[in-house]
């Protein structure tokens, strides 16, 4: 439900995995197959001398250092910034406004209902139930529309469809209050807490 860039994740993880795989296979082949060793000597030696030539040609006038070092450092810093930006993309999409709409009445202005209203209403309604270990509600934006994400942790043995029906009724009551049909995702989860406490035997 959140805005994690899934395709980007797959592509970047795949690229990293392929590179590591290639390096690992090359190292293992170097250790075991002598023919690969001779090929590697020729190829990497040529590449290294080409790089040295490039370093020699790019020296600062009158000094022994090359400015390629600065370029390399800039590339590394850019890579670090990109990686941090990538991590920051994970799990984004939480918003604070549930409904933002024009008011049909004579008063100018529009109506905004904060997500906290729905979150607290649902949470307090679910807190009374003895067959739940815990519940949590968040507001997320999905493709421009705010929606609710409800996570409940039932005790062992509670029928999930009955819980879904009850939450559905709560959400319908909420719809009547906000005047808008909010998309809702209900996640009936099992947690470690539910596993180690008594099962729900009687309802």
């Amino acid at each position: 439900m959140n805005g994690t860039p899934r395709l980007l994740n797959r592509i970047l993880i795949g690229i990293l995995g392929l590179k590591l795989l290639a390096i690992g296979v090359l190292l293992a082949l170097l250790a075991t197959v002598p023919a690969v060793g001779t090929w590697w000597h020729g190829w990497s030696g040529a590449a290294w001398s080409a790089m040295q030539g490039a370093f020699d040609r790019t020296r600062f006038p009158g000094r022994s250092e090359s400015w390629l070092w600065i370029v390399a450092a800039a590339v590394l810093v850019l890579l670090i910034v990109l990686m941090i930006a990538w991590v920051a993309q994970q799990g984004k999409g939480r918003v604070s406004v549930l409904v933002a709409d024009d008011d049909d009445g004579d008063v100018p202005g529009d109506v905004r209902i904060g997500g906290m209203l729905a979150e607290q209403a649902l949470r307090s309604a679910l807190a009374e139930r003895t067959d739940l270990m815990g519940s949590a509600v968040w507001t997320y934006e999905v493709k421009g529309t705010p929606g609710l994400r409800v996570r409940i942790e039932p005790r062992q043995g509670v029928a999930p469809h009955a819980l879904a029906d009850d939450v559905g009724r709560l959400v319908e009551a909420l719809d009547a209050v906000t005047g808008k049909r909010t998309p809702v995702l209900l996640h009936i989860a099992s947690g470690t807490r539910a596993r180690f406490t008594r099962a729900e035997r009687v309802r």
Partner: protein
Amino acid sequence: MNRHTADPVSNDFSDSPAGYSAPELSPDAGEFRPDAPRMSRILHRETHSSRAGIAALAAILVIGFCVYALLESGVHAVGQPAWLIDPQTAAERITALPQGIPPLLLGAAGAVVAMVGLFFFLNAILPGRRARHVLRNARVAVVVDDEVIAASLARRARVAANVTQEQVMVVVSQNLVVVNVRPTSGIPIRSELIRAAVEDELESMDLTPRPEVRVNLAETGVIGA
């Protein structure tokens, strides 16, 4: 095993011991259709891994490598002695690679790096399905962890077989529910009864994909349960 079995129990939800009713589609269910594509997209995202953790791990790995390379090249640029290894020396050692390191160590290092690479690569390629099912409901989009389904089915099977909690074990996977029951010694159990009860419960859950039911009765019984 057929999920369309026309047994009398599976169509009668009212005799469920806990008194639950089946999720009925409310008359305004059609109203849900306009945002159905969005909801199915949400449900697909919820039943598949986002790989956020792996992505963070990969990013940390790359950042660590970059920071180290930055440190060494910075140290080299200002003419200070290297911290671990000078970039120039490192490059020379890499070009001379089969020499200068025991082949066993080199091979082992290569294998470890290849395994890490394979781990990331497979995580990117495989579908990454989570152990969850979609439950159909008139108003809300519902995903259920398989453990919750298993616990619910185990309770139902336990009541049907009249055994204790410890004698029933249910394993739920994508397309199969395996119910393992150890009967009490001397008290016979009919597996059709258990199957009917479990299928009835599954029917009222209305899961997607709908798993098949397999009931295994243990050969040996439990004494004094």
